[in-house]
């Protein structure tokens, strides 16, 4: 019995996504095809990457209110610098990742509230994005465009990308030794420090990873939309928080699941299109995301209650 509950954390997101997918297929059988599935999940890829970025921050018990602005910025860099001057573009993106790591170290060193620092940084990222790309436009580098729109045999690109993201993040955060220590920082920072680890470097590493995934999210987004603007991904901030929670993650205790986070992002994307197939008005798309979030969290509460009673 315990074994089953020990896996409920990932079971619940999987079941929610599967139920939603089945319902969608039932409503609209035409989506049950190569192109249908690709259409349903296409825009989920950048969201999944942004969600993994948010997860890296939550892993060390912080929260990032700047993910959306940061992804917008990296999208703008991708659509301009990376396209026009690839070397400079890569350099700028690397600097942005480093900036994230520095932000993590500063938050830890000065014991600042992450929520306010990232709030301030969201203005900074937004400003830089406007600076780079004052009006919507730019163009996607050709290789990126062809990668995001490629049509691999049998399985659509959106699915392949999601699986790859989930696998890489899982290896990095769950399987690897350093990922384990990073989760340990969220679980019991004191005992990690007592064992001789430099917590400030671990925090910087977690933030750096978040920056890396944020960069990838911006690139993936431009590959899909072929252009960018400074506000293109602002809603990712809230979506990424919701995605992590939906995927079984928690704000405290270093309890995160990369696979769950990707599934959470897919569920939120699917929830938006689902109701349009129900022939309900598209007005309710955003509300459906909120509703599904609440329902899944309610289900999780039932599971955890039973779990504590058993154990």
């Amino acid at each position, binding site marked *: 019995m*315990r074994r089953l*509950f*020990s896996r409920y954390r990932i079971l619940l997101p999987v079941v929610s996504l599967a139920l939603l997918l089945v319902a969608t297929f039932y409503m609209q059988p035409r989506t049950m095809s190569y192109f249908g599935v690709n259409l349903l999940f296409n825009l989920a890829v950048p969201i999944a990457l942004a969600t993994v970025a948010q997860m890296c921050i939550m892993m060390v018990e912080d929260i990032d209110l700047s993910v959306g602005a940061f992804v917008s910025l990296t999208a703008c860099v991708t659509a301009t610098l990376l396209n026009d001057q690839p070397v400079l573009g890569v350099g700028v993106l690397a600097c942005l990742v480093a900036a994230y790591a520095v932000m993590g170290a500063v938050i830890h060193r000065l014991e600042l509230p992450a929520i306010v620092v990232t709030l301030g940084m969201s203005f900074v990222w937004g400003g830089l994005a406007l600076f780079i790309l004052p009006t919507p436009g730019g163009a996607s580098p050709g290789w990126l465009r062809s990668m995001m729109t490629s049509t691999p045999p049998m399985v659509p690109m959106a699915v392949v990308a999601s699986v790859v993201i989930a696998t890489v993040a899982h290896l990095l955060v769950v*399987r690897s*030794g*350093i990922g*384990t*220590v990073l*989760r*340990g920082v*969220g*679980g*019991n920072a*004191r*005992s*990690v420090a*007592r*064992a*001789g*680890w430099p917590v400030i470097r671990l925090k910087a590493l977690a933030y750096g990873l978040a920056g890396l995934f944020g960069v990838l999210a911006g690139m993936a987004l431009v590959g899909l939309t072929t252009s960018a603007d400074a506000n293109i991904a602002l809603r990712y901030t809230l979506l990424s928080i919701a995605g992590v929670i939906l995927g079984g993650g928690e704000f405290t*205790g*270093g*309890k995160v699941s990369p696979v769950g986070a990707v599934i959470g992002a897919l569920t939120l994307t699917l929830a938006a299109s689902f109701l349009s197939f129900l022939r309900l008005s598209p007005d309710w798309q955003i509300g459906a995301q909120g509703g599904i979030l609440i329902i899944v969290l309610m289900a999780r509460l039932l599971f955890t209650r039973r779990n504590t009673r058993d*154990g």
Partner: protein
Amino acid sequence: MSTVAQDSAPIVALTDAAKSFGAVRALDGVSLSIRPGECLGLVGHNGAGKSTLVNVVNGGLAPTSGRVDFPASGADTALVAGVRSVFQELSLCPNLTVAENLRISHSGLCGPGWRRAARAEIARTLDTVFPGHGIDTETTVEELGIAERQMVEIAIGFAPRGQDVRLVILDEPTSSLDAAIADQLVVYVRQFCAQGGAVIFISHMLGEVFAVASRILVMRDGKVVADRPVAAFTRQGLVDAMGHVADDDTVAAVTRDLGPEVVRTDDGLAARKGEVVGLSGLAGHGQARALAHLYLGTTSAWRGRRDPKMVFVAGDRTRDGILPLWPILRNISIGVLQQFSRRGLVDRSAETALAGDWKHRIGIRTGDLANNILSLSGGNQQKVLFARALASTAPVVVMDDPMRGVDVGTKQGVYAMIRAEAAKGRTFLWYSTETDEVCQCDRVFVFRNGRISAELTGDAITEEGILRASFEMQDD
């Protein structure tokens, strides 16, 4: 075994080590050496200096004076010398699996395949220490029961982790283990010492200490009062050595007429009107939880009352008592604001008058009640918390070890005030880690392992009686 102990260099040697916290000498000049093959049983009552000694040995605290050396290894730090500690508070990461927790304290595990190596190492250690343990190394720690967590923690303490384990400090290792598993640990510790390791074993189960130790160290008031081979002790002798034998002139509480019963809980705690009820036993055996449970169950988080049924005096001031951003004045008045309100607004002149009155009655040493609460010394902060509670009209006062870090003069004043209030018909439930305080009560409940192990009244309230009930005497 004893021959080994004589021959080799000590693993750790303390020379006249002392540690003071402010005016308190927690460790008062202790010299001690632990050799390979020894198992040192460490006993003493609350505040005897056991945990300070342990922290000085494992490098967690630097001694104020004296030396700590590691002659056997020649190392500079306890970690390099192979000294490990298994603490009473859980120091595992609850979100990681058993094997992953080993990774946290063993940074040598890296590269591909570290997971398999970690699993093998922790499983091997668990199998050796607790044969038939039934713990899956891939379960996350938060899903384990409390006993299993403690077993994992002990196993990580004894696991090789790429170096020689020379000394393992076990602080109450069996507090949540059942008898059969505790026996396994005792057997393993003996075996570990026979192979040249050393252990410091702290426990309130005297039977276990006798079973496992080769030598017993008794501490009292920061000093070592007895240090002899185990055969030189009897159980009675051990209890006597822990107590203040000379102090037998405490005034027994005068028998008074008490009112009807006003408190009665499911776990057996009871008090009558005007009674001072003591809660005793070793720290962390459920007294604080019982009091918090009682208080939270009696009062409401949804409705404030002008006439509360119960008030709480916190002992852990930072966690439970002090509102750190506020001046002394507001810290006193927070519990009684509704007594002098006008249409929901605070009557500030009445508030100032009340706080000024209590400043004199309880003797809070400050120039100005508008100063921040943190400008006060610990003892004076505690007086503020007493004033907050006593200023209310509540008939029952619950006190959770309120005399921590309070000087003697203050204590005497507060004792007198408690007596006076009790005579006027207030009921006190008073948890204290200091036995002489508990001895002033009308009735004492002694806690052990989260339950009441004895109820003492009248002449039966003695230090010896409390010690007997706090420590498990029989082999079980």
